[in-house]
């Protein structure tokens, strides 16, 4: 009974293994896996990995995490502190007179070094092995996780060792070493405090460098009180640490074999570099006469100078320190009775190196930064947002180390905000790799049941148009008084409670903008005279409307056309335009995504315009950045995608970088609308690198004041289809954003992506907040009308179709 209720002890591993065995007997293991493992990884597949002690099924981990508000609060503080510490550390080094290197310069240097090693692993490995053996170390290349475990267990048996100690090592977690040894009666003492805490609670590390970051001081006090036999107070954290120190010291003195990982292994000298703050690795690698280093080839670095570059990046990225407290360099035995063994594990690394889309992930130096910036990680922690490895890198490497089924659930939590890519100290393109994993998951297990029909409808321009018009018509009676949002529908609790859904516009933007044309690329109706001095006077610009703008917010579309025309551009609108395919792409459905991308490329090419502009920033990202990747194996389409990408711009970039709007161009006497703030749509900030540009438009061109928004660059939680697939996750990320808006004191929130606007408006409404959420183009449009009232005085020309 109790087992049922808590969901523990059900023996998933055995059930899954049994089911796989039965399935294999009936119709092949692959078919069985397909049937047994839905895309969220609810059923665990007993793969060859980790010696049996595997995480619980994803759905359980996710649900448990959603129920843990204390963890969430802790992780929010953790992320905020980390952000300040990390940014300060890099800035101080850049500005120091004996420093001067930027994060980017050091990052690119280390990435290039790592790439040299990844490209010629055998050569560097041979160099390391020769040097290590010269130093008197023993180098063993294991051929499986099991084999690596066995080597260490055999070593213990041979020497009659029953107690070993360990400093933190993710590689040992990966192969389930503790479990393997404990099952053979060998006691493993974890000496890193965080690692010991998760060992005491029979969990896995939830963060690469802060294993127990999901626990608060009450939990740790309970665990440590039990382990030390002392009554420890939650508020006396120093006392908890001291008690742990004394207890662990016994283990240090008893252990006769010490196991560590390595932060780097250096080829030219045959050296292991280990980094800790506690100093536990010094003891683990000093006191026992045998030291085993468990490591993968991806840790190889050619020279000591390279190691120094890694040192400069690692601690700053991990904890905001310039360097960790202890950085230890061990080059073989340091006394006659000492043995040093290297056990190399592959466990999917060669497969990664062989896959061009994932090779870069082997650069990882395990700093944890990709978790520290990740909004979904803050909501659910590393047990759900990861498998053995947590954070973005865990979403990428799990399929290689532990099989696609193990990675299927966690990857579904990424909202593609791209924040991780901006802080990774070795420039791994994590967001793209996560989408590549998602594609593999969809290819293997199919789309969730509800997504297939939705995407089928969405991908068919004609059907979609009919459906959207029908929805616009039939949703009217369901609108709340006032008409902007739907009444709460029965049964839609999880989707609507925290975010009101918009009522579609009576008339889509296309009806007005196409002027009744049914094909070709007609000129947009004249909504504004050319009023401004710009660099685009007379330039032919094709306008890509974007689905949500078209169907929900036609007034945004008109505002966009008005601004472009005010700049003097000749605005044309390709009639055959439909959705760019982003919903299919970010769902991992490449087949439909490509179909929609091809149609979009054809439609926009035919416009024969100098520039293609959209006020849907996420579509600009999809078209300019994802299309070329989407057609990676179709050279002809890839070339067309690249040509299109060169012309594709989001509105902000277009106005600032191409039209070069002048400061004050739209400055009108300030009306008292209260404080305004700006939310950086995550992809605009992280992918399009729009940092100064929106501010240039608001402060410069409009001449308006802006108040600061805390965490302005952190995702709002819309995340494309994520907010429908994982509404609970989306709700929490939105709550963080709304609290930040409260902090700012703003009454108007501006951003540049229609999906986020829908999400934020719905969130403001559902939570009873009275903050206007506007697209930047609407603010510009307000400025335009206020600046040139006479130009818009004539009736009939100016009213919005949606009004």
């Amino acid at each position: 009974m109790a087992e049922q209720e808590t969901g523990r002890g059900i023996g998933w591993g055995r059930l899954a293994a049994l089911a796989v065995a039965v399935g294999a007997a009936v119709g092949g293991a692959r078919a069985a896996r397909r049937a047994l493992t839905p895309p969220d990884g609810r059923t665990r597949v007993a793969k060859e990995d980790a010696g049996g002690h595997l995480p619980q099924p994803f759905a359980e981990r996710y649900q448990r995490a959603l129920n843990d508000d204390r963890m969430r609060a802790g992780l929010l503080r953790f992320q905020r502190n980390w952000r300040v510490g990390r940014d300060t550390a890099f800035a101080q080094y850049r500005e120091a007179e004996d420093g001067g290197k930027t994060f980017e310069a050091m990052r690119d240097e280390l990435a290039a070094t790592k790439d040299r090693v990844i490209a010629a692993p055998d050569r560097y490995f041979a160099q390391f092995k020769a040097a290590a053996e010269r130093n008197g170390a023993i180098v063993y290349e294991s051929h499986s996780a099991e084999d690596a475990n066995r080597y260490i267990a055999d070593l213990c048996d041979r020497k009659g060792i029953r107690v070993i100690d360990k400093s933190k090592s993710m590689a040992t977690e990966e192969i389930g070493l503790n479990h393997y040894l404990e099952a053979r009666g060998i006691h493993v003492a974890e000496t890193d405090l965080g690692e010991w805490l998760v060992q005491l609670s029979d969990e896995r590390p939830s963060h690469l460098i802060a294993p127990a970051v999901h626990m608060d001081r009450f939990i740790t006090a309970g665990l440590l009180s039990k382990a030390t036999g002392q009554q420890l107070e939650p508020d006396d954290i120093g006392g908890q640490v001291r008690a742990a120190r004394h207890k662990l010291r016994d283990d240090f003195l008893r252990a006769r074999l010490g196991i560590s990982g390595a932060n780097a292994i250096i080829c030219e000298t045959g050296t292991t570099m280990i980094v800790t703050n506690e100093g536990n690795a010094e003891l683990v690698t000093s006191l026992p006469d045998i030291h085993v280093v468990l490591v993968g080839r991806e840790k190889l670095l050619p020279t000591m100078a390279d190691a120094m570059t890694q040192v400069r990046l690692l601690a700053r990225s991990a904890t905001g320190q310039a360097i960790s407290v202890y950085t230890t360099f061990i080059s073989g035995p340091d006394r006659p009775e000492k043995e040093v063994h290297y056990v190399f594990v592959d466990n999917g690394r060669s497969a990664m190196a062989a896959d061009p889309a994932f090779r870069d992930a082997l650069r990882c130096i395990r700093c944890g930064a990709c978790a520290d910036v990740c909004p979904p990680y803050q909501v659910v922690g590393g047990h759900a947002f990861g498998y053995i490895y947590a954070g973005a890198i865990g979403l990428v490497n799990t399929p290689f180390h532990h099989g696609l089924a193990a990675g299927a659930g966690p990857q579904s939590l990424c909202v593609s905000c791209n924040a991780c890519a901006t802080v990774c100290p070795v420039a791994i393109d994590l967001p793209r790799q996560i989408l590549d994993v998602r594609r593999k998951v969809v290819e293997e297990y199919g789309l969730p049941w509800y997504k297939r029909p939705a995407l089928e409808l969405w991908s068919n321009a004609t059907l979609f148009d009919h459906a959207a018009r029908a929805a616009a018509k039939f949703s009217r009676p369901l609108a709340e008084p006032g008409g902007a949002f739907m009444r709460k529908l029965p049964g839609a609790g999880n989707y609507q409670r925290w975010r009101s859904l918009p009522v579609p516009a009576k008339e889509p933007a296309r009806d007005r903008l196409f002027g009744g044309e049914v094909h070709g690329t007609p000129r947009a109706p004249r909504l504004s005279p050319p009023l401004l001095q710009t660099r685009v006077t007379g330039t032919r610009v094709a306008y890509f409307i974007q689905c949500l703008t078209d169907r929900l917010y036609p007034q945004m579309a008109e505002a966009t056309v008005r601004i472009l025309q005010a700049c003097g551009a000749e605005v044309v609108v390709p009639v055959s335009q439909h959705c760019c395919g982003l919903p299919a792409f970010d769902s991992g459905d490449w087949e439909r995504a490509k179909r929609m991308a091809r149609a979009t490329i054809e439609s926009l090419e035919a416009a024969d315009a100098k520039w293609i502009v959209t006020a849907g920033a996420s579509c600009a990202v999809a078209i300019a950045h994802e299309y070329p990747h989407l057609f990676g194996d179709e050279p002809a389409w890839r070339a067309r995608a690249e040509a299109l990408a060169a012309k594709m711009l989001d509105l902000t970039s277009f106005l600032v970088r191409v039209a070069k709007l002048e400061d004050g161009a739209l400055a009108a006497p300030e009306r008292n609308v209260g404080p305004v703030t700006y939310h950086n749509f995550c992809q605009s900030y992280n992918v399009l690198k729009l940092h100064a540009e929106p501010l240039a438009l608001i402060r410069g061109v409009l001449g308006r004041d802006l108040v600061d928004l805390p965490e302005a660059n952190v995702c709002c939680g819309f995340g494309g289809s994520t907010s429908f697939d994982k509404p609970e996750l989306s709700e929490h990320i939105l709550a963080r954003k709304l609290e930040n808006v409260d902090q700012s004191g703003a009454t108007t929130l501006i951003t540049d992506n229609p999906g986020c606007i829908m999400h934020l408006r719905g969130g403001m409404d559902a939570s009873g907040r009275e903050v206007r959420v506007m697209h930047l183009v609407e603010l510009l449009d307000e400025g335009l009308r206020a600046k040139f009232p006479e130009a818009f005085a004539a009736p009939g020309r100016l009213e919005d179709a949606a009004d």
Partner: protein
Amino acid sequence: MATAVSGERGVALDLLVDRLAERTGKLGVQIHRVATLDEVAVLAAELVEDGGPAAFAPPAGAGWRAIIAPTLDAASPALRQHLTTRGVALAEVTPDRPTGASVGVAVGISAAAHGVAETGTMIVADGLADRLVRMLAPKHILVVQMADILPSLDEAGERLRALTAAGPDTPGRYVSFITGPSRTADIEMSLTVGAHGPAELHIAILGAAQG
């Protein structure tokens, strides 16, 4: 005063000392600019006088002691003399009980091969017994020669390479960069010093005394 230069960049040593002091200061390390080993002994005497945490307390009747790392002891026997003159009781490292030293010992003293101004790091390269002295007492004094302070991790990497390439039975087999007191933030990010190693770190820079 000090006009000697360190490293290829030729930065004046006293500037390096200032930088090192500034950066270690932020880590809670205390820098002592001393002219002689006797001043190190005076410092040690003060620290012994202040005692250590109850958990390390000496048995009833006995007083707190200091301990000298064997490598430093061998290289600078004068230090032992000065300590004794200053009335500091010493614990001894014995080969059979290398860790027996932790009871009643308030202060460990060892030598650093180099300092690194960029990060406030001390580079130590010695043996197991030295490392234990460094880890097991609650307070530690690292003694470094002013002339051995390097400007940055670049020079440190070069020295490290030379040390590790020196062959078996040289101190280069096991080299540590130590930057501040042992610490952990594993419980609610709350920074706690003295996780496994010393909670209090002192750096005595020999030859850097003012005036």
